[in-house]
């Protein structure tokens, strides 16, 4: 334990070279999209941005080379996030959790067929986990997959499914065994979305965007048995791997998203300081402080992994810090933009409203607190 050199938040020479190369690239290639959480135009441009980043060597850099990565240390993702935020570019596409889940659980054939397309951005994916009666209690899910020759036939209802309108593939959890304990009868599949048995309906979010959220109905949708991810009954451990990565700000690239929003808010206040009162400015100061803390927290977590510490229950700590940061940024946006905004000038209101989702998505804050209490503080079982 412990590094040979003392604490150093600065770039090593190779890291510096990478940062400057990315900075120069961004001068030319920033697509200038609006803030991610507030505009359908952003989501419409997401695939092209992902591919552009990947093709220039700035996406998926920490993943293995055989799936399109560059085998670089995790710190390079931090550099990408910082530079994207600094340039006011859209954040990194957030799908690391899917890649990590498939890497850990799928056999070589499934990895080789699906991972390169996820990483290079040519294939769009969504994640079919939650159902109307299975939210925090995910193991209560009722979607079923029944074997029929070389295929499974899937029937059920998924909801709050991000990117489902755009996705060619759904990583779907379905019950394949009804005889065993409910956690053990779940399997995972890579299911093709463009087929007659799949119906997708957009779910407009509270901030009015329509392209991120949706529900998916499976009515006899078919998926090849060879598309099962992991073994039969391995759906639950796969889901736990995925949600644990989904709690990590560095996996999501969200620290960069918040930094960009804060930068925009600061620029807005600096442009016309007389318009803003002490309370508004104080809310902005907290957003600066929180987003900076989160950036540094990610640096610390990733450094600890150099000791070979794999991610564990501290993901719940990170999820809560990320949530509070996003919601502090949201409150600053509300304070500065205000509810009085109308029409084309309601971006800040949309940032605020979107921030309410962060304490729910990927496991509610209440679930994260339960996990911190039991797995980190080792408090007695309730």
């Amino acid at each position: 334990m412990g590094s040979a050199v003392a604490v150093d938040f600065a770039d090593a020479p190779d890291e510096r070279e990478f940062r400057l190369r990315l900075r120069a690239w961004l001068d030319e290639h920033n697509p200038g999209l609006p803030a991610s959480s507030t505009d359908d135009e952003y989501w419409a441009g997401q695939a092209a941005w992902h591919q552009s980043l990947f093709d220039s060597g700035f996406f998926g850099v920490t993943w293995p080379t055989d799936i399109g990565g560059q085998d670089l240390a995790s710190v390079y993702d931090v550099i990408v996030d910082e530079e994207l935020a600094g340039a006011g570019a859209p954040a990194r596409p957030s799908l690391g959790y899917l890649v990590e889940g498939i890497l850990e659980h799928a056999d070589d054939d499934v990895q080789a067929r699906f991972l390169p397309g996820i990483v290079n951005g040519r294939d769009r994916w969504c994640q079919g986990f939650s159902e109307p009666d299975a939210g925090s209690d995910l193991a209560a899910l009722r979607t079923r997959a029944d074997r029929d020759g070389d295929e499974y036939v899937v029937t059920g209802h998924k909801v709050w499914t991000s990117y489902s309108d755009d996705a060619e593939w759904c990583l779907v959890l379905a019950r394949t065994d009804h005889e065993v304990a409910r956690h053990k009868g779940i399997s995972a599949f890579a299911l093709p979305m463009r087929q007659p048995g799949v119906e997708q309906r957009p779910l407009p979010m509270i901030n009015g965007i329509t392209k991120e959220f949706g529900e998916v109905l499976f009515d006899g949708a078919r998926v090849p048995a060879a598309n099962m991810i992991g073994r039969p009954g391995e759906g639950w451990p796969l889901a736990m791997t995925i949600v644990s990565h989904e709690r990590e700000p560095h996996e999501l690239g969200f620290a960069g998203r918040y930094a960009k929003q804060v930068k925009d808010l600061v620029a807005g206040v600096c442009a016309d300081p007389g318009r803003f009162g002490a309370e508004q400015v104080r809310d902005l100061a907290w957003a600066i402080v929180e987003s900076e803390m989160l950036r540094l927290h990610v640096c610390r977590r990733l450094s600890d992994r150099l000791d070979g510490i794999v991610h564990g229950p501290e993901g719940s700590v990170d999820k809560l810090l990320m949530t509070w940061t996003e919601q502090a940024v949201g409150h600053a946006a509300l304070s500065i933009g205000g509810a009085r905004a109308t029409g084309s000038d309601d971006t800040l209101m949309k940032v605020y409203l979107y921030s309410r989702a962060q304490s729910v998505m990927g496991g509610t804050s209440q679930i994260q607190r339960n996990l911190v209490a039991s797995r980190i503080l080792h408090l007695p079982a309730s």
Partner: protein
Amino acid sequence: MDVRLSSEQLALRDSVAQVVDRLGPHTVRDLDDTERAAKFDAAVAAAGWRELRVPVEGRVPLASGVEAAVVAEELGRGLADTPFLGPTLAADLRRLAGAPPAGTAETVAFSRSLLAAAVVDGGVPPGTVAVDARGATCALVLVPVVGGHALAEVALGLVAVGTDLTRPGAAIDPAAVATPLDSPGSRPLADDDLSAWTALGLALDCADLVGTMRGAVGLAVGYASDRRQFDRPIGSFQAVQHLLADAHVVMDGSRSAARHAAWAVDALSPGDALAAAAAAKAYCARAARTVCETTIQVHGGTGNTWECLAHVFLRRALLSTDVLGGEGANLDRVLAHHGIGGGRGLR
């Protein structure tokens, strides 16, 4: 980037922890045990931890802000009733001014609000107070001179217990005389020097706050696991679990911000180091008050009695918060760094 502590820094942390666990106070009653306190003080003095910011060559200190923060964090965790912040900040002022190390135990005098080092221009302003003054015979103050500020000493009278039961302060008599340091090689402290010094002070406050939070969370988790009501440990109730989980999470976030502040002291320009430290201090100060209040709440009626250590943690956190400013002053520093507001003349 690699922000892990080095093996040497981990070893330093472990040696401080050992001394604290062996000789530090473990109960409120221990605070009155003068024999123990004297042994503790002697052990800390012998270890040389108060001399980490003494220059080894030119203005280069013996150790960086990170080592100083490592010591401060463990002392905070153990509610150490022996000076560290005061003498460390005094040594750093002397280093920056090119003055020789102090011959006697020394600390720093602060303005009434504790927002900045005391400036004596003529008489000592009323309310001037020496912080962390146990055992100190004098305190450094700033005197305006051409090109910045020079250092002077004021003698200290009796040390009075203040809010923090572990780090008493000493009021300075308004009639006291500030005697300029008689050191031929010294130079005036420029604004940049005072920014760098303030950054160190804030970084040490943050580290102490992180340590205090670790100690307070540990105390509360232990109590919640033992204390039974309704035939169950109270720590099995979700309402209590969520309070403690939140306390742990803000402590951990504080740790990340505090480590950066400690690194920035010697690695960044004075202005950037000050901004890093101010952001960390605002975060840690808010977190620490919440955490210590949670510790009192989880202890219930017991937590509101003098003999429970919970208020000793809270009191220590409140002094660390006030030294060089809490949330408000440091949010102003952060905003000033981003070009918003005047920073109310804060360095």
